[in-house]
């Protein structure tokens, strides 16, 4: 996940604790949107993060592949609905990422 020193050991700088997948602003925003809720509808996250359906779909696929986001498709009446939620692993990675960001910001 982080960079390694020439001796093969990870450095002590907090940036080594950052999750590379969350360095993309859109992916970090998607995870942030899901972090404070149990689950959210695809359209809600799209509107909140201000991206198109295709962009969100691509970012969610990457996060789903990493095992950090779960996607559930269902229906309310005749309307199809796609729900997004953070997995336990995704929540843990996000918390570590935030801790690293705070450490970097603190200098």
């Amino acid at each position, binding site marked *: 996940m982080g960079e390694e020193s020439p001796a093969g050991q990870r450095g002590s700088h907090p940036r080594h604790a950052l999750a590379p997948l969350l360095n993309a602003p859109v992916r970090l925003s998607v995870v942030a*949107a899901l972090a404070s809720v*149990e689950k959210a509808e695809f*359209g*809600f996250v799209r509107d909140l993060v201000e991206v198109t359906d295709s962009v969100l779909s691509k970012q969610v696929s990457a996060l789903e592949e990493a095992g950090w986001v779960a996607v559930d498709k269902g229906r*309310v009446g005749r309307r199809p609905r796609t729900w997004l939620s953070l997995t336990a692993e995704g929540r843990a990675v996000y918390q570590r990422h935030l801790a690293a960001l705070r450490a970097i*910001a603190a200098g």
Partner: protein
Amino acid sequence: MHGFTDAEVALGRVADVEKAARARSGWYARYLWAFAAGQLVLVPIAVLWHGFASALAFGFVNTALVTGLSLYAARQRVVRRGFGVKHGVIVGIWAAVFVLAVTFGNTAFANSPAFAAAAALTCALPLATGAWLEMRRSS
């Protein structure tokens, strides 16, 4: 992202997004306020008014309230964290208080407007408390 300025920008953006998502899950407070308000009508009907017309009125008001709240909840796009547990606890407490209120209201305190008023407020209390806590959480 190596600089502290980038990190601060990212943290600021994350805080804004989290706050916006949390605010959107505030619908549950409105749900609970409506549920609490319904008790002020339902409980007096159940305690003070007896007979077929009472059962009909109670059934109509209760069905309208439950249907309205269910449709409102189904339309929401965000579900708060820990929704299932919190809703279960609040509705469980309300159900226990409601059963006690109706039981005593039809036996020991039959036809007592004072008891009906107190019972209505007592039944609304767990729902109103949940709504108030929810408003604080999502604001």
